[in-house]
């Protein structure tokens, strides 16, 4: 059993159309860098210089990692990681 990583539509081109891929346990930033080895190009879309891009939200088991330990948040096998473009309605971002 690995970490389940949910891929947003705009990035599915890089995962051969897969909505969900397997990730490695450890920190969130290591998980992203590990995805890069199998899905080249994906890391720079999600992060820049070891930081998650400003308009990408990452959730671990539905909790925003900014409420946890940000890029250093630990994920373990069985956890679910969602990658969601912020402005695309992933968070509480749309004006009421």
């Amino acid at each position, binding site marked *: 059993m690995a970490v389940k990583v949910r891929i947003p539509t705009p990035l599915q081109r890089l995962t051969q159309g897969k909505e969900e891929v397997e990730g490695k346990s450890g920190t969130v930033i290591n998980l992203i860098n590990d995805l890069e080895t199998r899905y080249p190009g994906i890391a720079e879309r999600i992060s820049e210089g070891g930081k998650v891009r400003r308009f990408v939200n990452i959730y671990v088991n539905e909790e925003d990692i900014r409420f946890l330990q940000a890029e250093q948040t630990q994920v373990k096998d069985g956890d679910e990681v969602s990658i969601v473009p912020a402005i695309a*309605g*992933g968070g509480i971002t749309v004006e*009421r």
Partner: protein
Amino acid sequence: MGYVSGLKCRECGREYPVDPIYVCEFCFGPLEVVYDYKRIKRVLTRKNIEKREKNLWRYKELLPINGEPQVGLQSGFTPLVKADNLARELGVRELYIKDDTVVHPTLSFKDRVVAVALTKAKEFGFDTVACASTGNLAHSVSAHGAKAGFKRFVFIPATLEQSKIVASLVYEPNLVAVDGNYDEVNRLCSEIANKYKWAFVNINIRPFYAEGSKTQGFEIIEQLGWEAPDNVVVPCASGSLLTKVWKAFKEFKEIGILKELGTKVFAAQATGCSPIAAAIKQGTDVIRPVKPNTVAKSLAIGNPADGFYASQVVKATNGYGEDVSDEEIIDGIKLLARTEGIFSETAGGVTIATTKKLIEQGRIGRNETTVVCITGNGLKTQEALTGHTAEVHYIKPNLGAFEETLNKIQSAR
């Protein structure tokens, strides 16, 4: 022909054509409209503006449309009220209220952004407009969309108060109440926006929609006699309005309408949802999302899309961000009503109370000119004041009863 040269990602600078798109395919940053200021400079002068009708379209060259305005022809150009009573109370020399409690037709600044969004939706050839909202935006899309002849889908959380439902329903949109919280409604709407060819004003039309907020800034400058104020205090939900008011000031400087610009921009938030003010106070670039808990529901965005940019504007202009408690918000609403006769929604209470705090802290100087942006009408959120207003004097229908009460009122003074 309009004056827009294209769309551009605010984060990575990638350029895109003018289409109903809103997010950079590469880095997911927001797209922004780019104008040809050199051409605008030749046509948009003080003289030309002054000759035009008093609505938000008098600045049309700086709005992202190609042809003539089609929606909201009576919207905007709200009063800039010289607030002498409030100024006296707060101990400052010159204070103005930009009064968007009276925007036509639905009494909030959302009528500005929706006027622009729906004109753009017409240009793109959409026949259906939509939004996710709990209040002001729903009312504006329902009303403007009715007049403009659009099919309308308005998505709300099913738990919304009856009074807010009626204020949308009267315009007969398709009102869809979703069994879920705001977050879930928003998420559903982004899925719907991907699947159906509709103009979701605050999703796929967002770059154009957001530009409508600039008209509040343009009007402030014009109504101050073509001068910029020393300070402007703007309420922040997503932070978009603050960035656009500042963009308006800068654009007027860019095209030569404004000679000098040294305005400090201040962000006002409720303590129960103050991610932008918190970042400004801590001097960090990271907007840490919060779970909102405040009476100011129209400002309750815990993860503000433009929060970073709003904090950068505040920093660049030597402004500041402050936040106020629910009690201060209610007092702010009452203070504005008591001194200036203006009934604002809770967001206005936030702005007034924040202004008071900034003056007390000395961040807003007592001899400076300050404009306070009030963005919506209090009649829409009356429940916020339950238990906080003065009492009614109930009497029997005779003169004796009245005079007895009158004595009580006079002796209480």
